[in-house]
């Protein structure tokens, strides 16, 4: 009997699943005994099937684990991370209150002496910054107009030009220093820095980029970055509703800027079902910013804006983040396996001012060149 590889595999599968008659089994055994190549093939195939079976079992088991965990998180059996975080902040504040008071009074005395000098300095500095900013802005505006695409809408975003520093937005999805931003933001950057609302700079690297959803995962690599446990918002797995209200935080300038709007369509540019159309004011620099609903769930990530219509902005849906992380973990076997998306929002029920206050430490300016 002459068998090609496919027939061997087929026979092997029927053999192991007990579909063969005793005579067939016997002749297959015989064949393996007499033909080393076929035997080798069967052994390899058996191993692969065994691995596939083990893979299936573990995958199903992990799935059950996640479901059980989600249920227990909801019930509060597993404490939500925020609780630990809050307690920490309070104790730190208490411990440092006295030092801060002393520092403040020293600062007050020094400022009395130096205000004259500083005033002059600030004036010069101010002019310089203003010019620089306007240059950057001009450059961006000209790029906006220069874009053309096969759709009649130009997705306009702060496309980074070589040798020019670009600014955009990113936000933490894991306190170990993982951020989400737009793929186009970092596309041409050689070095990436992120800056928090306190003005601290950290170096970062792109660990995964997905051009289809225009999302990228950054990892802060700076040793001065301290892990944060209490990310206050969660990432929404489902779709947002039409007309749902939201707010955004972003860095169209060197300071965090708040914006408000609503979901105006459940698909993006050209019917793109992985994105939303939003009505909100956004500018270059808002790219990569989180879109957050009233429950403190991130529902999307601002990606682009329609240059011909006012206030028409597109955002990638938040469920892309889950896919992105899944893909990243499938493609990467190193430390990035440990990314854990925040579960449960602690912003629910708070008023907007409090929500923004709690949130702004987790939104970063992404810069680079």
């Amino acid at each position, binding site marked *: 009997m002459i068998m090609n590889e496919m027939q061997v595999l087929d026979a092997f599968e029927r053999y192991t699943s007990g579909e063969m008659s005793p005579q067939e089994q016997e002749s297959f055994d015989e064949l393996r005994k007499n033909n080393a190549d076929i035997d080798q093939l069967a052994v390899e195939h058996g191993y692969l099937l065994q691995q596939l079976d083990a893979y299936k079992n573990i995958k199903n088991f992990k799935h059950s684990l996640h479901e*059980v965990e989600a249920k227990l998180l909801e019930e509060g059996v597993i404490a939500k991370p925020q609780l630990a975080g809050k307690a920490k902040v309070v104790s730190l504040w208490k411990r440092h209150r006295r030092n801060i008071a002393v520092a403040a009074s020293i600062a007050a005395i020094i400022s009395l002496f130096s205000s004259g000098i500083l005033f002059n300095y600030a004036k010069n500095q101010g002019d310089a910054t203003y010019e620089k900013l306007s240059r950057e802005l001009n450059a961006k505006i000209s790029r906006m107009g220069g874009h053309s695409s096969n759709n009649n809408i130009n997705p306009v975003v702060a496309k980074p030009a070589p040798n020019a520093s670009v600014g955009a937005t990113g936000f933490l999805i894991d306190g170990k220093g993982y951020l989400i931003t737009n793929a186009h933001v970092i596309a041409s950057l050689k070095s990436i820095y992120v800056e928090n609302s306190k003005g601290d700079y950290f170096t970062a690297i792109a660990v995964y980029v997905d051009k289809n959803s225009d999302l990228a995962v950054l990892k802060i690599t700076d040793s001065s970055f301290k892990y944060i*446990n209490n990310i206050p918002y969660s990432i929404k797995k489902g779709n947002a509703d039409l007309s749902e209200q939201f707010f955004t935080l972003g860095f169209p300038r060197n300071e965090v800027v708040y914006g408000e709007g609503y979901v105006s369509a459940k698909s993006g540019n050209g019917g793109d079902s992985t994105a939303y159309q939003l009505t909100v004011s956004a500018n270059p620099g808002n790219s990569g910013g989180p879109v957050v609903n009233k429950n403190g769930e991130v529902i999307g990530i601002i990606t682009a804006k329609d240059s011909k219509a006012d206030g028409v902005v597109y955002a990638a849906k938040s469920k892309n983040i889950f896919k992105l992380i899944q893909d990243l973990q499938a493609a990467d*076997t190193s430390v990035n396996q440990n990314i854990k998306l925040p579960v449960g929002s602690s912003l629910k029920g708070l008023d907007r001012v409090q929500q923004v206050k709690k949130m702004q430490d987790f939104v970063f300016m992404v810069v680079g060149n």
Partner: protein
Amino acid sequence: MGYYYTPKRINKNKVSTQEQENLLLKGLAQNDKSSIEAIYRENYSMIQAFILNNNGSVDDARDIFQEAMIVLYEKSRLESFSLNCQIKTYVYSVCRRLWLKRLQQLNKFSTQVESLEDTVPVEEEIEEHEKKDNDFTMMEHAMAKIGEPCKSLLDGYYLQKKSMQEIAADFGYTNADNAKTQKYKCLVRLKKLFFAQYNKSE
């Protein structure tokens, strides 16, 4: 090869602790959610307290506990399976060992990790688990790389145990034989991708 089980209901009132634990472990081996949940409820808070007391966060605790559950699951599926201690002691021992390893990797291992609970030796099992985990990652990687329609086809046949007829219908192949040929091609691809990593990691 295809295991289909009916989860057994566990009557908590009528059985002794020992029997109850055995039932839980049997349920666990069959991927029964109520058993998983019972073990979670019984043990998670202890593990979280341990991790938080030893330089970890709640996220770390969730992570480590899940991994320990997988170790226990793998153990419970062995033919030679027997647990010579309480589930609680076993889970604690595995978590403790896993967390020590994690701390060492992060170079955070400065203070003595407290151990007030009983522990049993679990080094071998954890080594075995790491090997399996590595295999799992390689298979996951290979499956991710294989692309469509292969991924869905192999998933349908080997993971969801669909018949060739169903698969032919799902993928629009004219008959089961065509689906079979396609499956064969996919399998050869998968094998290549899987063993390529295997050789790399050796």
